[in-house]
């Protein structure tokens, strides 16, 4: 399996805060990699560097190399807007566009490219909603407002919206932490299925969730990458003492 995303000595500063230190690691293609670690260790910060969401924060500074398909996304002349189409993102709280219908939400990103013929749009909506296992639940009310869906459905809609623009990598920042347990399980199942087509990187501070959904796990601690490897290994026989302590609940 080749590496889809590759980090080389990535450092991220916010003003004087050094939030991520010298992180080098790879994310294999068509697999789920979980990033775990205590609150404030830099998980979200690291994740957001991978589709240049930090460009919006004036104080943020990213150094080192972040390669997607061997191309440096922070390279000169690289347009963040086009990077974000290749590297999609799903957020903690479901955030469908409230003024739009379910249908419009799915094609919201796709439409930015210009007018979209009716049939093509229909096709995209159907295939994306099917892929997130939402089609059967909403096919009779595609034109109703997206906010009429439940939290879990909204999150799946957001995932549909993200895959509609045909990304290669999907970043997820605690995608289920605002959901009830059953919706959480549904999202986890979905992640399992999506990994056949996309490279998925997920931040979660629920260790059990990381254990359940991911193929690889990276453990961050105070901005450092402590250990990174197969999830099975990390959760049964980690190599680093700090990983072991964190995973077994020995902190403080």
């Amino acid at each position, binding site marked *: 399996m080749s590496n889809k995303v590759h980090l080389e000595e990535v450092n991220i500063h916010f003003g004087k805060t050094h939030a991520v230190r010298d992180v080098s690691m790879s994310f294999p293609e068509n697999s789920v990699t979980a990033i775990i670690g205590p609150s404030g260790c830099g998980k979200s910060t690291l994740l957001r560097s991978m589709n240049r969401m930090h460009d919006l924060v004036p104080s943020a500074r990213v150094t080192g190399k972040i390669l997607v398909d061997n191309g440096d996304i922070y390279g000169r002349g690289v347009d963040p807007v086009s990077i974000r189409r290749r590297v999609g993102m799903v957020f903690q709280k479901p955030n469908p566009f409230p003024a739009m219908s379910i249908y419009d939400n799915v094609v919201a990103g796709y439409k930015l490219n210009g007018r979209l013929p009716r049939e093509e749009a229909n096709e995209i909506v159907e295939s994306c909603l099917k892929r997130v296992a939402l089609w059967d639940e909403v096919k009779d009310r595609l034109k109703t407002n997206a906010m009429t869906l439940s939290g879990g459905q909204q999150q799946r809609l957001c995932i549909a919206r993200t895959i509609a623009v045909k990304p290669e990598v999907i970043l997820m920042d605690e995608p289920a932490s605002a959901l009830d347990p*059953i919706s959480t*399980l549904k999202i*986890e*199942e979905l992640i*399992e299925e999506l990994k056949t087509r996309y490279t998925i990187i997920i931040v979660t501070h629920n260790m*059990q969730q990381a*254990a*359940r959904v991911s193929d690889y796990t990276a453990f961050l601690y105070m901005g450092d990458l402590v250990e990174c490897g197969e*999830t*099975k290994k990390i*959760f*049964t026989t980690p190599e680093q003492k700090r990983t072991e302590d964190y995973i077994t609940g020995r902190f403080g």
Partner: protein
Amino acid sequence: MEREHFSKQFDTELNDIREKLLEMGGKVEVMIANAMKSLVERDTELAEKTIAFDHEINNLEMVIDEKCLEVLARRQPAARDLRFITLALKIVTDLERIGDQCANIAKRSRELNQEPSLKPYIDLPRMAQAASDMVKEALDAFVRGDDALAIKVCEDDQFVDELNEQIQRELLTFMMGDPSTISRAIKINHVSKCLERIADHATNVAEMVIFMVKGKDIRHTIA
């Protein structure tokens, strides 16, 4: 028969363990059969094969252990699933020991084949068949969650024990009568003990199946 897990992946993993256990059970049965065949038909080559085969059983034990550990670490199973996994962990040890006993039988068979035959084996194959059936049924009970079958296995142990005692008495008579048979008789005696232990292990499995299904620990109560 049973509802599926919400997570298909979890179901797959549990099924995988179940299948690997069955596979191991199947291999163990073959091993019992082969060990006995090598003895009865004085087939030293088959005995060698059987001894070598133990290696595979050992490997399967490690694979299943690892899988169980992985499921425990990644899925946090509870209730029936948890009992299933912990008992898989224990059953696999029993199966591995059964494999060891088969290897022991094969070793004795290898030795016995060097010497002239003492007497035709009549009770021993019957005992082996009974023990083998018990292993099979215990595993079936485990996989199907069938506690009735498991109880039957526990009861069958009695029969094997009786056969064992009978064989021992018989061998003692042989030895007393003809000291030259002592060495061979001791070896046959050992085979009989091995078969008895195999039946014991099957009984262990069956007891644990009852625990898994009923949630009641009946070990050390009947015995």
